[in-house]
Structures are given as C-alpha cells and as structure tokens.
C-alpha cells in the first residue's frame, strides 16, 4: 500500500512521524527552547540595528567625533523631518516607550506586539540616533526583541498565558544584547516589566538574555559599551563622597523627570501639524549645541568612555551633563523614537565625573578616580531617573566587571532613588503610560505594597478555649458569661475543633460530672492559621468555616486569636498607613 501512496502523502506521513518524535514536548519545555531562539533572533536584530546606527552616523555626520559645520546642524534637522513623516504616515506604532509597549503587550493585548513596530523602530531610530538626536538604542532594542518574540509566539500558536510571557522574554533578549549585560537586562525586565520573580518566566528570560548576548558578541565582540579604568575604593570615610554624588544624581534625575512631566503634555497638546516639525526642531537645537559641543549628540558611548578616562575638566563635565539633559529633553519630548537609557548613562557619567573632580580638588585624600565616580554616577542616574535600583546596582557591576564598586554604588543609587521617589511620586514609565492614555500596573507600587497579614485582622477576644476534660456545667457557665464567644476545643497541639454552643447550653443542666467537652457535637479539625500569613492565604483556607484559630508557630497548643470573614473584610477596607499619608 505504501508504494501506492502519492509522493506528497508519503512525505507528509514521514514528516509527521519525525515531528511527533522530535516535538513531543510540553509547552513549557517548548517555551524554553523558544527563548533561546528568540534570544538569537534578537541578538541578530540588535547587531544589525547597531550597524545601521553607525552607518547612518558616518553617512550623515561623517566619521569624526567632531562633525563639521554646517553638516552638524543640517543632518539632524533634515533627519528629524524624515523621521516625523515616517512616524506619522508609515509607523505610527513606534511612538512612545518600548518598555510600556511591552508592558501593554503583557497586560492588555495578550502578548501582541505588531511586527511592523519592530521594522519601524529599527528604521526610525537608526535615522534619529545616527543623525545625532540625543537618544539611545536600548529601549528600541528592547521593543524589537519583544516584537520578534511576539511574532514567533503567535506563529507557533502558543497559549495565551505563554503569549503574555513571551514579550518580556524578547524584551530581555533585546535589552541584553543592546547593553551587552545579560544580568542587568534580566533584572530590568523582572523589576520593571513583569514585576514578579515568576519561576515560569525567569528561566526563559535568562536563557533569552544569555543567548542574545552570546549572539551579539559573536558579531560585535565581547567588549563592554565603554571601558572602565581600573579603580579601587578606600575606607568607609570615602563613602561620604559617593553620598554627595547620590544627592546630586537624585536632583539631576528629578530635574529631567520634571521636565518630562511639565513639557510633554504641553507639546502633545500642540496642533497635530506641529508633529511634522517637532523632531526637526529638536534636531536643529541639538545641532546648534553640537557646533560647539558635539559630544551631546547621539547615544554618546564614546564620550562616556572619554569621561571614564578623565578626559574632561569638571566644568566641561557639568556643562555636558546639563546640555545632554536639555538635548535629551528636546529629542524625547519631540516624539522622536528612541530610548532614554543611553542619555541617562551619559548624564550620570558626566555628573559623576564632575562631582568626583570637584571632590578631588577640595578633598585630595579621596582616592576614587574620576572614572570611578563616573561609573557610580551612571548607576545613580539610572536609579533616580528610571527608578530601577536593583538593576542600577547590578548594571554598574556588570559593566565594570568589578565588585569593588558595590558599596559606593549602593549608597549613591539608593540616595538618588529615595530623592527621586520623594519628589516625583509617579515613576517615569507609569507617567509616560498615563500620558499616552494607558493605565498599566505600576511595578514600583506593586513592589512596595505591603500585603495585609492575619495579625492585621485577627482578634484575641471572642473565643473560649475548651479542654477535652472540661465539664459541661463549667463550660456552660463560661459560655453564658460570654454570649458572643466561640468555643474552640483544644484536642491536642495542632488539633482544634469547633464546639456547638447551642448543644452545650442545652445539655449542660442534665449532664453528669463525667460528661465532658469531648462528648459534645463538634466540627473539625479546624484548619488553623499563623499570624504572619497573608489575608489572601487566609481567605483561601477560610472556606465555609465561621472562624479559624490563629496559633503560635512555636507552640501549636497556644491560641493567639481567631479570624472571621468579617474581620478579614474589615481589614481590607482599612487603609494602609502609607496610603493614609498619601
């Protein structure tokens, strides 16, 4: 019969047999395999993206760090017009933050990121960054990764649950390749996009990040974005110097955030025809700055490298930090697609370098080099502006390949983070989402929301503890004295039963002295709780029980209180202390 089958059917039969052997795997295993595939795709996309940016830059601004006039003004202005036309007519989906697009994919569109945005981000960002707009390639890379992952997930018809997770997996891959820092990328996605350490997603995210970095390194080399000179950190007294940097970094990130808070809605409210001109206007202003200080143009990694090597005076470093803030403001607010990660690194490095140089001048005993301060400054601004403190700390360590800086970085980033949080309640990505009309879950809020515990709702009164040997007459007296109290029978440590009150009162008058609590009708054993468990856990256990005993973890015979459904609901209605403060 086999020989009688047509060739196509024969092939199909063989193919199905082979596929059945090779692809018999659960979806979660397939998901891990896909993560590797997504990582490689994203790595390749990021390599091509970086080549595109560099080629565009060489073509538009020339091969020198110092582009000649009038090219330095004309290139970003004209490129701005081209980008505006592309964004308005061809790729309208590329506007906005890639992080929020990925979050929207997770929380709103079941993991759907249109592939056209990948192409759109690639083209428009390459033109914008290559022409000198003060933006970075990381956020677009993140979105490209998410877009690629989403396309693969959809093509493979993954379940909705996996489709939602696949966008962050791609985002981590894209960011890891762009930063050449897999740990930071994983942390960023966990910290900012998905907000939880979900075991299901973490493995895939790590695999994708690692495979994308390996791919990227295969083509562009293992070198970091900038070289960090050797450094050492002296005694604890020196930490004060980094605390000062933390304060300055917190102030600077706050300034940048406030600029976006204030100016973005105003620019968005302008007539729609101005959107054709806004990127060009930003390009013109940046070009004008670039006539004297071309360092502020583009992503600026080469300049960060120079700052790390102490190539600028403190005055120039401060000026570059200030002008970069301005230039990034122009580019970002004009709606030019591109990320704010690289400008944040730039501003942080310049500010850190400046603070370090000034401190060296006044306090010569400070041993940290300008490069050390620049490095710590990067983490500081990142934590203050993007509000991802854990990522910031690990990013600095990963970029420098040196754990020596961990203490200064922690001190400085935490100070900047606290200052930024204190004076700007809504974090950047939430703010951008709200300005775009999206209400995405705030990962920062979620991270810091304290779960309500059993001890917040339980009460110590309203219960009578009965022992198995207690006589009914005595128990009845106690029950009548406390009319509302529930009766809990302690059979043995860890075993509690609920006694029927009405039966007790009914049988007590005629009960013989040998009739004790164990002879009463009771319900149990009752599940018990501990005071530190969350109310969400308690609700799951509560079920149909009118109350649950809350007992001591060290002594299961010791009752600490009881919890009822009413108590639980009351506790949920009660605002948290922090919420009241707000």
């Amino acid at each position, binding site marked *: 019969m086999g020989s009688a089958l047509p060739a196509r059917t024969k092939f199909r039969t063989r193919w199905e047999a082979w596929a059945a052997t090779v*692809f018999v795997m659960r979806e979660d295993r397939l998901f891990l395999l896909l993560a590797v595939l997504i990582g490689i795709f994203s790595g390749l996309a990021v390599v091509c993206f970086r080549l595109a940016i560099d080629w565009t830059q060489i073509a538009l601004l020339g091969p020198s*760090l110092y582009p000649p006039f009038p090219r330095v003004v004309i290139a970003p202005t004209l490129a701005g017009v081209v980008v505006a036309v592309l964004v308005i007519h061809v790729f309208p989906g590329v506007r906005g933050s890639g992080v929020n697009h990925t979050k929207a994919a997770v929380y709103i569109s079941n993991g759907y990121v249109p592939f056209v945005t990948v192409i759109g981000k690639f083209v428009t960002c390459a033109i914008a960054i290559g022409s000198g707009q003060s933006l970075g390639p990381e956020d677009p890379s993140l979105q490209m990764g998410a877009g690629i992952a989403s396309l693969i997930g959809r093509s493979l018809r993954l379940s909705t649950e996996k489709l939602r997770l696949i966008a962050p997996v791609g985002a981590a891959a894209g960011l890891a390749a762009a930063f050449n820092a897999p740990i930071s990328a994983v942390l960023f996605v966990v910290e900012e996009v998905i907000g939880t350490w979900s075991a299901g997603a973490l493995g895939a995210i790590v695999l994708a990040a690692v495979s994308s970095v390996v791919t990227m390194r295969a083509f562009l080399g293992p*070198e970091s974005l900038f*070289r960090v000179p*050797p450094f050492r950190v002296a005694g604890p007294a020196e930490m004060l110097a980094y605390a000062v940097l933390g304060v300055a970094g917190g102030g600077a990130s706050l300034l940048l955030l406030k600029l976006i808070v204030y100016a973005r809605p105003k620019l968005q409210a302008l007539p729609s025809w101005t959107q054709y001109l806004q990127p060009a206007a930003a390009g013109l202003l940046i070009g004008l700055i670039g006539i004297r200080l071309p360092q502020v143009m583009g992503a600026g990694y080469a300049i960060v*490298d120079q700052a790390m090597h102490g190539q600028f005076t403190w005055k120039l470093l401060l000026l570059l930090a200030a002008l970069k803030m301005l230039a990034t403001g122009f580019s970002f607010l004009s709606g030019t697609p591109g990320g704010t990660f690289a400008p944040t690194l730039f501003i942080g490095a310049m500010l850190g370098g400046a603070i370090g140089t000034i401190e060296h001048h006044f306090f010569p005993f400070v041993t940290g080099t300008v490069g050390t301060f620049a490095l710590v400054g990067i983490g500081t601004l990142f934590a203050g502006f993007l509000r991802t403190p854990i990522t910031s700390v690990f990013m600095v360590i990963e970029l420098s390949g040196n754990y020596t800086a961990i203490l200064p970085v922690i001190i400085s980033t935490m100070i900047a983070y606290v200052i930024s949080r204190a004076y700007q309640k809504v974090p950047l990505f939430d703010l951008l989402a709200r300005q775009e009309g999206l209400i995405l879950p705030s990962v920062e809020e979620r991270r810091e929301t304290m779960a309500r515990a059993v001890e917040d709702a339980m009460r110590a009164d309203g219960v009578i503890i009965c022992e198995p040997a207690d006589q009914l007459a005595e128990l009845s007296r106690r029950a009548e004295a406390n009319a509302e109290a529930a009766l809990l029978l302690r059979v043995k440590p860890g075993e509690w039963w609920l006694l029927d009150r009405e039966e007790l009162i009914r049988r007590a008058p005629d009960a013989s002295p040998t009739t004790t609590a164990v002879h009463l009708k009771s319900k149990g054993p009752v599940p018990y709780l501990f005071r530190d468990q969350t109310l969400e856990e308690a609700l799951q256990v509560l079920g149909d029980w009118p109350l649950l005993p809350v007992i001591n973890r060290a002594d299961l015979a010791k009752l600490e209180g009881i919890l009822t459904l009413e108590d639980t609901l009351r506790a949920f209605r009660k605002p948290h202390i922090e919420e009241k403060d707000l």
Partner: protein
Amino acid sequence: MSATTDTSLPEGSPRIYSREFVFLLCVLSLVVLVVITASLSRVYHKQVHTLADSWFAHGQRDMQAGNITAALTDYRNALVYNPNNTRFQFSLATALAAAGHGNEARAYLLNLLSESPGRGEVNLELARIAVQNNQLADAERYYQGAIYGEWDADPIATRWQIRRELCEFLLDHGLMKQATPEVIALAENTPAGDTQRLKIVGPLLLRTQQWTRAQELYRDLLAADRSDDEALAGAAKAAFELGQYSDALQYFDRMPRERRDTPDLASAYGMAQRVLAVDPFVSGLSANAKAQRATAALTLAQSRLQNCARQNGESLLETPPRTDLQILWARFQRTQTDWSERDLERFPERLDASMEFVFGAENAAAKSCHEPQGDDRALWLLGRSTSVVNR
C-alpha cells in the same frame, strides 16, 4: 504535534502550518539571518578598521608635525572605531602627556597597565607623569616597572636609559638612599669601553658619593684619553673626596687653567693646595719643615679651640674638664711643652701625637661650632683623609 500542549490547532487548519513546521521555518530563517548579519558585520568591521587606521595615521602625521591638538582629535577618532586597540590608546596617552594633560593620559595608561602590567613603555609614561605630579613613590615604582618591563627594540640600551632617568629623578629629589643602588647598578651595566655612557655615569657616582667607584671609572676614561678634561675633573674630585689630595692636585694640574678655575672645581683645587701646604707628613719634607708645619698646626688648633669655646660661652679652664673642648684644652696644657718646634724637630716621634691633638681639636670644634674655613678646614680635612689613616 505534542499531545500534551495546551492549545491545539483550530479545526480545519492545514497540517502543513503546524507548530513544528513554523518552528523549522524559524530555524531556517535564523540561518539566513545569521548569514546576512555575518556578511554585514564583516563589511562593517572592515570599514571601521579602515577608518580607525586612517585616523591613527593622521594622528601620527600630526604628532610628527608637532600639532598635538590635532593629533589628539585624530587619536580619539581612531579609538571610536577601534576602542580596544592598545597602540591607539598608548598613542593618545602619549599625546595627552605631551600636551601637558598628564592626569588624562594617566587613566588610559592605567587601563593599558591593567591589561599588560609588564609593558615597559606604559610604565615609563606613567613614571614621567608621576614625576610631573611629584608623586615620588609612584614614580619610583613605575620606573622600576619600566626597567624590568618588556621592550621590543634594544631592551638593554632602553633599560639603561630608563635607569639613568630614574637615578637623576631620585637624586634631583634628594632620595640618596634609593639612588645609590640604582647608580651602582647603572655603573655595572655600563660597558667598559663606552666613553659616552661612562661620562654620564661618572657624575652620578660623584653625586651619590661613590668616590672609589667614580675614581675607578675616571681612571678608565683617562686610560683611554689622558687629556680628557671631564675625566680629569671627575678624577680630581673623587681623589679629593677620598683624601688623596696629592693625586687630586695632579689631576687638577693636568687640566687647562680655564677649566680648573670654574667655580665647582676652583674651591676644591685651592683646598687641595692648602691641605698639602699644611700637611707635615708629606714625603720629602725635612725634619725642620715638618716641625714648623706641626707647630703652625698646633697654634691654629689652639686658637680654634679658644674661639669655639668663646662662641659657645664656655670656659676652657673649668676643672674637672667635662666637654670635648675642655678635655682637649687640658691635654694641650699638659703636653704643650713637649711640642715646641725644637722638640718636634729633635723628637720626630712626637709629631704623630701633636698632629693627633690638632685633628682632634679641629674635629671637636667642627662638631661643637661650625665647619672650619681656610687652614683650619685644611687641617680638618687632613685629619679625616684616608691618607692619614693609611699613613
């Protein structure tokens, strides 16, 4: 298709678009994308390296033309396209140092040093920057690193030059203790026939007070050229410091007058003459002349003791004598009758004792007051000279 997957294909979907097929399609497109990216990246790297080399060549030309500012820009541009090229980094650091931006250069050099700690040229540049910044310990450390580091071209000669630079740096900063072994090592690493280098080492030996080694070195030089002024001056100075005043005088006398009268030599020449004029032990002197010189020396020593005691507000007549000056004066009072000119002529064996007193008095006065001048200094030097010890 896996039987355990959560989602199944919609009914009626053609099997050819199954998950497995799409997966394979992904892998195939991945292969295509890898090939495309590899080709693009090869083109990119080629272009970038060409640009980097071109900027670097520009920089080299600008450096040779003395246009350091332009060279700095060129090197920075080169580093944008090839940031890990150590040659570019070193050239930028050298240009920065040449432009007076030592601290800026230092960061790049430290980077290079962390990658290859044994690289001689990096250590040397760091040492020179440390010298500019007056960071003596760092400078010495980096110089040592440069001496024992790797050098591509003529390492022996280069190391010799660096050690010489180190010696001069240490001596210029008064670090005599550290300089001495380096100068000795430099002298030992100098080939015997290399007149040019020997003439560099000689003054360094003199500056580190390695008189014997300096004398030997200058003797070697004089063996090659008897009338070499520089060698004669060095030999004279070494002989003078070794207390070989007669030899010193001979070297001085062989020098042209104008050379001998230069300020650095004239005083030594004059003093050598004085020492020989007051020395009663010069061979060939008659007994009378010896006695006369010893008597004159005793008179000088006596007044030197008195002057010094007066200067210190001290009485030489105090009994019992406590200070060195008082003890010497008391001894002189006891024995002066034995040291008359006539007695010294008649009993030449008393010459030693009398001169021992003279040298003791000059020494004590030098310690208690100040270093002597004139004939007192001549006697003091004579007392210290090895010629007296050896006599």
